[in-house]
């Protein structure tokens, strides 16, 4: 286990949680800038989505970040307490006519940058793997 964080669902807690998780997950990979950048980018999207959309940015609620080292890389899971959604309902902002949408790019970035992505039932959790060099 690299980290197991319970984070109050407040935007001002996003950066501290991100810093703590990325530092914990980068142990032994301090010089792998690409790994750190990819992990930070993907985790920021997952965490911001969980805080804002999953928990309604309500500090009384919390989201959880669990990370572990696996043979295939670092696997991170972010869980939120929200009502959930059907991932298929999300509109691809890169699709025809979708570029000018102001929302929906987070999952697109996660899928593009992470090596594996798994979305839990009703979108209440997301797991991803980031491989190092």
């Amino acid at each position, binding site marked *: 286990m690299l980290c197991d964080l319970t984070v109050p669902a407040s*935007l001002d807690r996003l950066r501290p949680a991100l810093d703590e998780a990325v530092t914990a997950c980068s142990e032994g990979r301090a010089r792998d800038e690409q790994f750190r950048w990819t992990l930070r*980018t993907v985790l920021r999207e997952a965490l911001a989505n969980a805080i804002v959309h999953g928990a309604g940015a309500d500090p009384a609620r919390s989201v959880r970040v669990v990370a572990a080292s696996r043979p295939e890389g670092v696997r991170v899971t972010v869980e939120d307490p929200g009502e959930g959604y059907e991932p298929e309902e999300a509109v691809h902002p890169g699709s025809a006519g979708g570029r*000018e*949408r*102001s929302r*929906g790019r*987070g999952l*697109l970035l996660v899928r593009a940058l992470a090596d594996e992505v798994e979305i839990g039932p009703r979108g209440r959790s997301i797991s991803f793997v980031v491989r190092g060099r």
Partner: protein
Amino acid sequence: MSFGIEVEGSVAVVVVREELVVENRSDFKDRVLERLDEGRRKFLVDFTAARYIDSAGLGELVSVARTVREKGGELRICGLGEDLRTLFELTRLDSLFEIADDRGSALDDF
């Protein structure tokens, strides 16, 4: 302040000092819309000093650019480093915005 505004002739240059992310995107929007209300119509968002933009920041850029366009103006971008350019390309926003390598060339052409 996360953002600075520098006026270069007819262009309001919005300098992103560190990052444009979910935590500060409203501030970015407010800074641009203040200048839009003052009558500015040309905006250049300079990312030279920035190291990060997230999907919420990208969405805010799209939204603000649309508002500027509806008022008869234009919002362009310059100074994307390699990592930021990757994010624009992955979200296909590199084809939505006019993007210059640096501020000088952006202003020459605006």
